[in-house]
């Protein structure tokens, strides 16, 4: 400790006197012990059940850190990335977070990939005033506690589930220019109900009419009678939030009944199985929402996809893009905060306004939910094809 204090004193002096021009200066932050690096913790699922999410994000985070460091770091300071494996387990995620804040004294934590493991760190982040950003935790509970209060130091990069309903409503009203729509939602899942609710609210706000609102229950196999009823109300567009197992059958049966209008869903559709269930033909003229597509032609996204492919030899997926974006979100906030103080960084993240990231423009609302761009993917003969990017 003495040595470290001495080092920081030395660095502070050197900064004042300006002898060591170009070298990084030390600045006291509440959760950093100063020094010439900015320590960022990554609390990720590197092994266990959802290891693929965590390791995808870790790869992309490393790429982003390398880039930033090669580019001179943040305000001249190099980023030191400290990766911890939470083994896809909530209890491990908590202890990993404790290690990061108390032992490594990180400035901020990135992680975890899943909502449950992110929630497990919230208390640690709040108590230690250390900002924490979950790249892909989509449950509202990550940033908003059960009593409805916002967790002050917790943020996320991915949009929350109900936001996809808003995106679908905007896409239907502004891009497809439809005036009336039907909703056919899975009544057994909160995910689908939340999406349906926000779709209806925003589609009506955009001047559209909901002509039919029907539901089904997961594990149903026969949707023909309800689809016939929906067809009779002549919708120009049908929004079907749900998971691929049922949606595949719904799409197939809808097309058999002669429903040819565009159908749309959210990330619950995103599985190769849907192509087998529905058939490639039936899936034409259907759209899904994702956070990111490797085919996005936008400059930033393309540059990322190229760099990623060069380094890892595979095209990046949403988890990669979100992990990468999280680092840049943090970098932007630290730069604007001009300090490594946790509270100042937190305030800077809250003030993020249309920051350009790989996954699109990014702002934060009062619940720490992102308001951001979403990518619309269209199925063309069973292949997922980039359609457009909807900005908030």
């Amino acid at each position, binding site marked *: 400790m003495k040595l470290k204090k001495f080092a920081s004193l030395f660095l502070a002096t050197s900064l004042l006197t300006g002898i060591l021009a170009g070298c990084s200066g030390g600045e006291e932050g509440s959760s950093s012990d100063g020094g010439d690096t900015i320590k960022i913790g990554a609390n990720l699922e590197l092994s266990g059940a959802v290891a693929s999410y965590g390791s995808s994000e870790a790869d992309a985070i490393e790429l982003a850190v390398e880039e930033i460091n090669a580019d001179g770091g943040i305000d001249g300071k190099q980023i030191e990335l400290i990766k911890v494996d939470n083994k896809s387990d909530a209890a491990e995620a908590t202890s990993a977070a404790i290690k990061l804040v108390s032992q490594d004294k990180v400035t901020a934590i990135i992680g975890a990939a899943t909502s449950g493991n992110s929630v497990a760190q919230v208390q640690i982040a709040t108590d230690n005033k250390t900002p924490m950003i979950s790249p892909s935790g989509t449950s509202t509970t990550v940033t908003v506690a059960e009593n409805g209060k916002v967790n002050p130091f917790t943020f996320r990069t991915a949009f929350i589930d109900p936001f996809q309903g808003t995106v679908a409503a905007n896409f239907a009203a502004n891009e497809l220019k439809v005036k009336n729509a039907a909703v056919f939602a899975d009544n057994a899942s909160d995910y689908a109900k939340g999406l349906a609710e926000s779709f209806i609210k925003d589609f009506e706000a955009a001047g559209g009419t909901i002509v039919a609102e029907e539901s089904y*229950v997961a594990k149903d196999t026969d949707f023909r009678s309800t689809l016939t*009823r929906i067809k009779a109300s002549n919708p120009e567009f049908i929004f079907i939030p749900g998971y691929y197992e049922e949606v595949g059958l719904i799409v197939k049966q809808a097309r058999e009944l*002669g429903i040819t209008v565009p159908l749309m869903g959210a990330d619950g559709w995103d599985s190769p199985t849907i192509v087998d269930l529905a058939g490639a033909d039936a899936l034409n003229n259907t759209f899904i929402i994702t956070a990111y597509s490797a085919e996005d032609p936008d400059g930033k996204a393309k540059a990322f996809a190229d760099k990623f492919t060069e380094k890892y030899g595979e095209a990046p997926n949403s988890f990669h893009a979100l992990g990468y974006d999280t680092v840049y979100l943090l970098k932007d906030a630290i730069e604007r905060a001009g300090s490594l103080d946790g509270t100042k960084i937190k305030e800077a993240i809250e003030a993020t306004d249309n920051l350009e990231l790989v996954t699109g423009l990014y702002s934060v609302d009062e619940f720490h939910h992102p308001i951001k761009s979403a990518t619309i993917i269209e199925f063309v003969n069973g292949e997922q094809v980039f359609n457009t990017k909807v900005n908030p």
Partner: protein
Amino acid sequence: MEWLQQLINGISLGSIYALIALGYTMVYGIIKLINFAHGDVFMVGSFIGFYSITVFGLGFFPALILSMAACALFGVIIERIAYKRLRNATRIAALITAIGVSLLIEYGVIYIRGAQPEAYPDVFSNRSFDIFGAQISIQSILILSVSVVLMILLQFIVHKTKTGKAMRAVSHDTEAAKLMGINVDNTISATFAIGSALAGAAGVIFGVYYTKIDPLMGVIPGVKAFVAAVLGGIGIIPGAMVGGLVLGVVETIVSALGFSLWRDAAAFIILILILIFRPAGIFGKNTREKV
């Protein structure tokens, strides 16, 4: 023509229920056992059809026949291993055994191939005809005709063959049939074989019509078919057919009126009402024609 379309939807769904209900009703008619494993024979039939189409590259009809044959054998094996020795036991013992067999088949299949669903390949073209504004796909026409042909065939077997005569005799009075020189064991096995073959056929038809199959797919159709059998009058063959069709159409009407979430409830409300007001079922009193 929304209602014509709904009627077609209902009859297609109902004919699958009817095919499964026939097996329930035949077995009940002959040994007074509610064979809860019947829905799982339906599932096994569906998977046999799936693998014969995807792995052996068979067409729809060869796959259908193979699945029916394999299920017939499977049904007989179940009967010989699990039910035969319980023939003189209490009915509750046999019923619990049936539930055990059902779980054994479901989780046995999950153990062998996993719980993930499979998508049935398209064996027919997806073309559909427009009749008075209703869309009828080639699939539904074929499925309906296969069901009708199988039901006619069943009526022929029960009424015009020696086995059918033996089945009717055993169902009427087992002891007397035995005294008349009828081999009761073989007759019961034949009943299981025929009932299971129909379930196998229903499994393949279900797969083609609804695409998604999984190891627990037999549970709900099995229970619905049981309701259909009770509705028509358990033990009565034409009752199972009518009960299945009525149930399919009722479920469709419930959905068509906008109560899609009440569809399953409707089936069970029917069961409760039937058990309270007419326990013998629709065909209960008039034609005491049992198998």
